[in-house]
């Protein structure tokens, strides 16, 4: 047995290597020219399955439009809503869509602020998802209104009757918050796209060129433009992040402010925000896998990035689960007997299937993300991410329906209320509307941020270079402190 002591420089090199990620977010073959080529190609010819998805979505949307027209002509009665069940699937799905939007902002704004670079290839489509989910949610506000032709009464607009909306109503807060959020995320999405639109402009012809020229607002990529752009983009991100948190908190006040059993809960705002992030993150995973395949983005949407996304989703899922459990615990140990009866009814009554379905899909299923096979097999992961969102939709369903079915007043207790085909049709149509808009967006606009991926490649190269030099220095034992250590 030799007594040779391992020399210090080698040990230091090992310590340094620990901080180098095993896998880079982007492969070494990704170059600036390749990025342009790949992303611009996504605007030209996607895989044929694109058209399958697009036209299925269009068909679903058309059916939803048919249902809505039918309801508009005949009255809300066709939805089978009734006296205690006044909201049904419309408001449940409204919360679902509003929630879906939040993760896009998390990825594009919060992770931008904290310089988490792995977000760069996937934030653009997430932000687009935010915008389109908000548009979808706004549809439900209109769809559920008895007199949707008078929806503008909810907005403070100048009118000759001198009437204002009622600012104590959470619905007015809702309208204001969602309006602000939609405008700002649309602006944020557009602003982030400007440098890329200029690239598109330089490579497009005909009508498209005119469109991109108009939208890129004369972007030349000068130093001054870049400096202004960075400041403006960061300001917008800082504005958007607290806004996103407040929007879903406000949506939760629709329920928390009322006095119905099961809604009158203090923890509702964080519970809603986390639920929103949760469903949004699994939505991003779904779209990640779909876009990666449809637009051949394999080089940008890589396994290391997906792993980080899954980690984030899992963490958020656990916080949401915790908040859900403490909501039940506070109700269970609380003094409000009606709320407690409502909780028992949820778990054992007419909607027990939906309740336990939610528990299974949204609380148990996230644990499958811990399995390596699930993370690496995209078909399985696609299905799991869809199941998580089914769970979150069921969560919204079981917030609305059982509460109305068994509220304070016994005479209005109804057993087994079920929505009509019109409601289901409109809900299905909303999924069609979202998918259609999203797919159109990805076909017309660059859904991977070219300039930020270039930044990422650049930084990755710099890092590698720096690291290589460092390793060389270490191995040669040239650094003074290393020598000192040896002594």
């Amino acid at each position, binding site marked *: 047995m030799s007594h040779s002591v391992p020399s210090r420089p080698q040990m230091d090199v090992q310590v340094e290597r620990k901080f180098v990620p095993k896998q880079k977010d982007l492969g070494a073959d990704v170059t600036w020219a390749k990025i342009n080529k790949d992303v611009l190609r996504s605007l030209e010819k996607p895989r044929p399955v694109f058209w399958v998805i697009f036209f299925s979505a269009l068909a679903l949307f058309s059916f939803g439009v048919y249902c809505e027209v039918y309801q508009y002509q005949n*009255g809300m009665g066709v939805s089978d809503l009734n006296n205690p069940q006044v909201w049904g699937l419309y408001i449940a799905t409204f919360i679902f869509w509003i929630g879906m939007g939040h993760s896009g902002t998390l990825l594009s704004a919060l992770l931008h602020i904290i310089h988490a670079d792995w977000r760069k290839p996937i934030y653009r489509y997430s932000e687009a998802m935010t915008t389109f989910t908000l548009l979808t949610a706004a549809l439900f506000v209109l769809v559920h209104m*008895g007199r949707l032709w008078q929806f503008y009464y909810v907005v403070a607009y100048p009118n000759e009757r001198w009437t204002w909306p009622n*600012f104590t*109503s959470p619905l007015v807060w809702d309208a204001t918050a969602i309006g602000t959020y939609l405008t700002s995320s649309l602006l944020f999405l557009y602003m982030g796209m400007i440098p890329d639109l200029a690239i598109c402009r330089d490579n497009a012809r005909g009508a498209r060129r005119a469109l991109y020229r108009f939208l890129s607002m004369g972007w030349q990529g000068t130093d001054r433009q870049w400096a202004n752009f960075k400041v403006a983009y960061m300001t917008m991100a800082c504005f958007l992040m607290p806004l996103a948190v407040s929007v879903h908190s406000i949506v939760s006040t629709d329920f928390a402010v009322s006095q119905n059993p099961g809604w009158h809960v203090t923890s509702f705002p964080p519970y809603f925000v986390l639920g929103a992030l949760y469903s949004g993150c699994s939505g991003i995973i779904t779209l990640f896998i779909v876009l990666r395949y449809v637009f051949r983005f394999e080089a940008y949407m890589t396994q290391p990035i997906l792993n980080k996304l899954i980690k984030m989703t899992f963490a958020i899922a656990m916080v949401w689960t915790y908040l859900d459990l403490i909501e039940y615990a506070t109700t269970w140990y609380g003094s409000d007997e009606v709320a407690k009866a409502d909780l028992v009814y949820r778990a054992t009554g007419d909607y027990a299937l939906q309740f336990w379905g939610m528990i299974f899909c949204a609380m148990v299923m996230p644990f499958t993300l811990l399995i390596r096979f699930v993370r690496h097999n995209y078909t399985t992961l696609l299905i799991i991410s869809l199941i998580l969102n089914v769970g979150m939709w069921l969560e919204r369903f079981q917030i609305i329906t059982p509460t109305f079915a068994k509220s*304070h007043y*016994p005479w209005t207790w109804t057993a087994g209320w079920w929505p009509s085909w019109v409601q289901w049709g409109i809900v299905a149509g909303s999924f069609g509307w979202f998918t259609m808009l999203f797919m159109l967006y990805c076909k017309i606009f660059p859904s991977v941020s070219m300039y930020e991926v270039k930044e990422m490649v650049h930084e990755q190269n710099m890092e590698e270079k720096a690291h290589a030099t460092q390793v060389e220095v270490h191995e040669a034992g040239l650094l003074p402190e290393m020598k000192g250590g040896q002594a």
Partner: protein
Amino acid sequence: MSLSNLIQNWNSFRTRRPYEGQYDDAPYKWAMVIDLDACIGCNACTVACYAENNLPVVGKERFGKGQAMHWIRIERYWGEGEAMQSEFPDHGAQYLPMLCQQCEAAPCEPVCPVGATHHSPDGLNTQVYNRCVGSRYCSANCPYKVRYFNWWNYPDRAWPNPLELQLNPDVTVRSKGVMEKCTFCMQRLRAGMDKAKTEGRILADGEVLTACAQACPTSAITFGNLSDKKSKVARTWKNQQVDLSKNVQEKSEEGIRGYRILEDLNTYPSIVYLERVRNLEA
């Protein structure tokens, strides 16, 4: 669209009701007493309300779907335990006429996005049909579920010719998509108050009645002005030791029957119910 108007609107919604001395100077505060002991569940009040307020008859199928439009409904409850075991379980049947409680702190008012439902100076919870957009938040937040939504366009077929001739010309026929509820027969009150004002007096007790109170064969429903200390309603409220501005009523002795429904939710309703007295041996 002035700022002062905004502040005024806002304040009217932010007022905490009921407050001390709210109706001290007011000439009217409409209220009701319903004696459950006198109620025989005959539904005459419901029929009278349908006729007076142009309520549509929705038909069996829609009634079964829970889309009925009865502003006042007779709820039937069956007694538990002892009553059900007796030889005549029918003795256990109890009736409760339920209509809008015209709450002082009405849960429906603050949540309406457009202010279509608001509080009138004479203590009524009013609904402005023209302003309603049909968000149904008021109904969602009403613990008594006494708000009724026009799920269908009833003027189309609820009154086929010549039945439209029997509609009450003093009451709006509501179209689809608006919320409606018991108004305490606002049109009668309005006409009566205007007449009294012209004559320089306030309405005498019993001069104006709601349709349900008028039609009740057993006089189970008493309607009147709570501000008028000598009115029958005010005297009953006092005798029953129910205070409009309290959410817990203290009774000086056993056997005082007056109570308000779901008082623990701090809604401060304007309707006092007198508990039923039953003799199971009889």
